[in-house]
């Protein structure tokens, strides 16, 4: 998929996120939108996965450690063909398989249930270790929030990943700079994030998480990195693509009402039209 197609697909995924969260009347749009380009690249370029065989043994694994941004993951999975896009409107509804946070037991393509922050990265480390134990070639990816890395468990996991030289593991931090209570630097600063992962024996790559050239280069570099895990620190904009949500902590976990939904979709339609003229 070329860069323009990736941008178009990411815009579709953003529309899906808004549609799902609006239909659910709850959910987490801000961090789903900030990571939409990363989800797009993962599911349309990077990951060796097959929607027709979601459990195939040699698939690459993805663990959404910041599980609350499930709408972004679900949108990417649906767009990739793991389940119907139409089902996204059942997000968080009673009886729907699209639970508020990822549920590996019921959602095709979800490799691990998550949602309690800090736990997903440990699971990803376990998957990567398992691949090493049995000499399997699949790779493991996990996406963390920048607020999430305040959890001590993240660093327990990072220490073991570095110690075990898990070069089949890629940790991505969605650095949108905001958490529920405000700016991460004001709440309990995790900065410098890159230096912390370096200290835990990771190869660290800083990128603009909305630039597909940089995303592509980072994942290529991660693949070429031997003897240590890679951390990609992706600088992003929370709520990216929706004018009134951008850089606003208030949109971490709130759904748009009907009026706001119309504005959000108009914003994204406009981006879509511009992309079509490129």
């Amino acid at each position: 998929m070329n860069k323009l197609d990736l941008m178009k697909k990411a815009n579709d995924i953003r529309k899906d996120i808004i549609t799902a969260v609006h239909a659910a009347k709850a959910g987490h749009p801000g961090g789903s939108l900030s990571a939409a380009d990363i989800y797009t690249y993962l599911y349309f370029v990077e990951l060796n996965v097959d929607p027709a065989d979601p459990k195939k043994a040699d698939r690459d694994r993805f663990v959404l450690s910041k599980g609350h941004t499930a709408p972004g993951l679900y949108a990417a999975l649906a767009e990739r063909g793991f389940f119907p896009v139409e089902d996204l409107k059942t997000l968080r509804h009673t009886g729907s398989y699209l639970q508020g946070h990822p549920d590996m037991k019921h959602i095709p393509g979800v490799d691990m249930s998550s949602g309690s922050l800090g736990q997903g990265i440990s699971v990803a480390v376990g998957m990567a270790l398992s691949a090493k134990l049995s000499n399997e070639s699949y790779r493991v990816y996990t996406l963390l929030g920048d607020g999430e890395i305040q959890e001590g468990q993240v660093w327990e996991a990072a220490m073991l990943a570095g110690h075990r030289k898990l070069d089949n593991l890629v940790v991505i931090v969605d650095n949108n700079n905001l958490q529920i209570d405000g700016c991460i630097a004001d709440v309990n600063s995790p900065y410098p994030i890159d230096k912390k992962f370096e200290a835990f024996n990771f190869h660290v790559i800083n990128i603009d998480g909305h630039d597909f050239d940089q995303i592509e280069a980072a994942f290529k570099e991660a693949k070429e990195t031997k003897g240590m895990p890679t951390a990609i620190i992706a600088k992003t904009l929370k709520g990216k693509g929706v004018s009134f949500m951008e850089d606003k902590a208030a949109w971490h976990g709130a759904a748009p009402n009907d009026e706001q939904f119309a504005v959000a979709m108009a914003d994204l339609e406009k981006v879509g039209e511009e992309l079509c003229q490129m």
Partner: protein
Amino acid sequence: MSDVKKIATRESYGNALAELGKLHDDIVVLDADLAGATKTAIFQKAFPERFIDCGIAEGNMMGVAAGIATTGKVPFASTFAMFAAGRAYEQIRNSIGYPKNNVKIGATHGGISVGEDGASHQCNEDLALMRTIPGMTVICPSDDVEARAAVFAAYEHEGPVYMRFGRLAVPVINDNPDYKFELGKGIVLREGKDVAIIANGLEVAESLEAAKMLAEDGIDAKVINIHTIKPLDEELVIAAAKETGKVVTVEEHSIIGGLGGAVCEVLSEKCPTPTLRIGIKDVFGESGPAKELIAKYGLDAKSIYDAVKNFVK
């Protein structure tokens, strides 16, 4: 009981892992810097490549075990009961229990028989905590034979299992050709009509001793070993309650939420029966030699005898 062979169930755990490791190459053992004490070092020595020391990070270890389980291997995650069920409760609940990941948790140093280390390390709440997690199988074996059988059964069982082992060497009581371990099935060790004593862990042997003392006073006590607290053998518990009309639970665990709690839940709903719970009475433990603490907290045969005698009269 000085002529009876004694072995700590943690030792049985380590031995069983090494034995199972020979039979199945999908077994991976994890520990959190306590391999010498949990006895996983026995497995580590035999299969160093399948042993992962996670260091002192129990929450992470449970997550790592969950990740390994998703890839089809069978991880046994080991640490003290305090740091498994206690510290890592939420990781067990969310990364293992909720997704039904096939992780086996080997928790050693359960209960007050930890001894000298004192209250911070004496976990009397683990069975209650683990029992509340949907789909979790919870086992507390009574001796070496049963502990080995439990580890083998846990491997065969598809789904999360919590096993509690002890630090203290305890008498081998199940070393007979008729012994059969079945998950969720209690074992009647002694028939009796006056009272049913239901026990687990090292309290099974203490209860058998107490039953002998009661017999000398003409009290005929039935003794049941409930090695699997969850799923509980409700049928056996109810039948014993109907048969004797009086039930006593004995455990090296808080009287809240463990075996006593489980038995009372079943009986109060399905067969209301006067019940006495013997266990740690909603207090923290303290330092001291294990045997002394067991007596001090009312969990030795003599204390059980006294309590049951008082209860049935």
